[in-house]
């Protein structure tokens, strides 16, 4: 019987259309048109990243940075004359992991903002909104307060590892909850998910409040880090697994660009254009959770990037997600590089939590954008 259906289907399509094999989908090759803009943003990001490696509590000259980089890559001692040994250790073990994490975390937040705004058809959506960020923060805070002190497993102190893992699992749990409850809802899946996110945020914030109440002074300081975000404590070791997860998630999200464009017309319209919206929604939510959970696990909650960055990119390129998604990754990276640069130079040698900088700069900037362009907000 199934064979019968298949052969009927084949017959129909051979007679009726141009044959099943010729049903193509839009592929990565069709991203070509936007190469100039993406290249420009990419170059700007590299320049900003380079500047970020120079500036900080201790400034390193451009020559030294280039010499250190060449020295660490090439098996040749001639570059050692151009830098001091302590400059090398500052750059390689403090400055570079920090710049790399700003790029990875900023990119992840930007890309997830772009995808969630399309998925919810709402220019105000961002990762914080569906509860992913606060879910991640809640479980991180729970680890800090409830497992106070050290976690020893087989004589190894694994406290440093437990924190990011817990944050990631918390973010994932929030996303799965949004998705599972959202799936049973009738009607507009995206709107329901948004409301579930509101409820999850309330629960997570209540939980964090209770934990704050229970915590002592040292824990409160650590806790503040999670709530305000910061890139100061990231090392190469903690960045590696996170960047793998984020790379996987971004690769998955970029492929959703064209379906998400159609989805902006409406869920039914997207289905009539041949898109399996259940599969698309599932992928968009899970990949977003993956990258946001991973980002929060190393950097805490950094607000406003996911909200503002897609708006900025749309102002330049228009709303086509093929540019907006990749552009938001690059623009998000740039914005976080810049914010982190401010965070560690404004009151150097002390530093501000970077989440404060993004919110303090991002909030007014967003207001200005709203006034200038009269951005339409529709649900």
């Amino acid at each position, binding site marked *: 019987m199934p064979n019968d259906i298949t052969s*009927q289907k084949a017959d129909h399509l051979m007679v009726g259309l141009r044959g099943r094999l010729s049903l193509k989908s*839009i592929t990565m090759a069709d991203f*070509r048109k936007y190469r100039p803009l993406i290249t420009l943003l990419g170059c700007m990001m590299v320049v900003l990243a380079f500047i970020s490696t120079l500036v900080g509590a201790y400034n390193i000259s451009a020559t030294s940075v280039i010499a250190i980089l060449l020295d660490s890559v090439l098996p040749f001692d001639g570059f050692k004359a151009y830098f001091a040994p302590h400059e090398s250790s500052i750059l390689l073990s403090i400055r570079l992991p920090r710049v790399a994490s700003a790029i990875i975390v900023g990119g992840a937040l930007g890309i997830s903002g772009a995808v969630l705004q399309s998925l919810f058809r709402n220019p105000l959506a961002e990762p914080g909104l569906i509860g992913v960020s606060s879910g991640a923060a809640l479980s991180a805070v729970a680890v800090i307060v409830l497992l106070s002190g050290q976690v020893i497993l087989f004589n190894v102190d694994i406290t440093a590892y437990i924190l990011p893992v817990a944050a990631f699992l918390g973010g994932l749990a929030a996303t799965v909850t949004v998705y599972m409850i959202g799936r049973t809802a009738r009607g507009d899946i995206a709107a329901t998910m948004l409301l579930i996110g509101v409820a999850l945020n309330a629960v997570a914030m209540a939980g964090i409040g209770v934990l704050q109440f229970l915590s002592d002074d040292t824990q409160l300081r650590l806790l503040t880090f999670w709530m305000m975000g910061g890139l100061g404590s990231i090392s190469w070791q903690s960045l590696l697994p996170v960047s793998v997860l984020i790379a996987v998630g971004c690769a998955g999200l970029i492929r959703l660009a064209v379906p998400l464009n159609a989805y902006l017309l409406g869920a039914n319209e997207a289905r009539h254009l*041949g898109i399996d919206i259940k599969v698309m929604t599932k992928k968009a939510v899970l990949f977003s959770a993956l990258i946001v959970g991973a980002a929060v696990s190393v950097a805490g909650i950094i607000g406003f990037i996911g909200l503002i960055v897609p708006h900025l990119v*749309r102002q330049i390129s228009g709303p086509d997600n093929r540019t907006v998604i990749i552009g938001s990754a690059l623009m998000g990276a740039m914005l976080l590089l810049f914010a982190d640069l401010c965070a560690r130079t404004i009151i150097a040698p002390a530093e501000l939590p970077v989440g404060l900088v993004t919110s303090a700069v991002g909030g007014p900037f967003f207001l200005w954008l709203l006034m200038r362009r009269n951005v339409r907000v529709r649900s």
Partner: protein
Amino acid sequence: MTLRMENIGFKVGKKQLIKNVSLTVNPGELAVIIGPNGAGKSTALGVLSGDLLPSSGTVYFGKMPHNSLTFQEQATIRGVLPQLSNASFAFTALDIVLMGRIPHGEAPECKNALRIAREAMEQTDTVALMEQDISTLSGGERQRVNLARVLAQMWSDQATLPAPKYLLLDEPISALDPKHQVNILSLLKSYAKRGYGIVAVLHDMAMASMFADKIHIMQHGMVAYSGKPAKVMTSSILSDIWQLEYSVHRFGNSIMPIVACV
């Protein structure tokens, strides 16, 4: 091959919106569904388009249940114009029409897609709106842009279709001025002549009588009458369905129902 729904029932909670509805869309035919508000017209169209999952009955393409085809395959056979389409974000009218080419794997820069989009926009008189932000357009303009999108999706360069394609249109002329109403319905009629199977929900009975090959009158969630305009657009049937005094006049070949106000 026809597109048809058989013995369809659709419930929301305990409320039966349509019951036992069977409709067949024949290729080469412009069928029009009319009926009072709440008669189940949009529900019937929703089931036919796959938006609503019927509580009983099945929708078929030929002999195959329509959901045995992938969404992409369905999208190359059936195009749907919803009652209201609100695009969020600042897409241009051309962007919207180009989305009709997504099921054919054609990116917006693709030459063929651009040619088809342009021709579809010429047909719906929207070429002048091409570069405008869709959300700044009036209701009628938006309706014509979205119709162009559906036409681009179902496009064929052949004069007669090698195999049928279907257009399901929910109130496609509700926001249009009289001239555009006539032009769009004439356009749809010419599509039907080329082999397209078209169903449209309309409220304007004069337009329905003038252009339809077949009219389905729905009432209380069922198809009450089906047939050629001359057969079903009679003063007794219309007066019975709408509870208004209708008189039906003839102008040449066309029938013109007129409501007699007290």
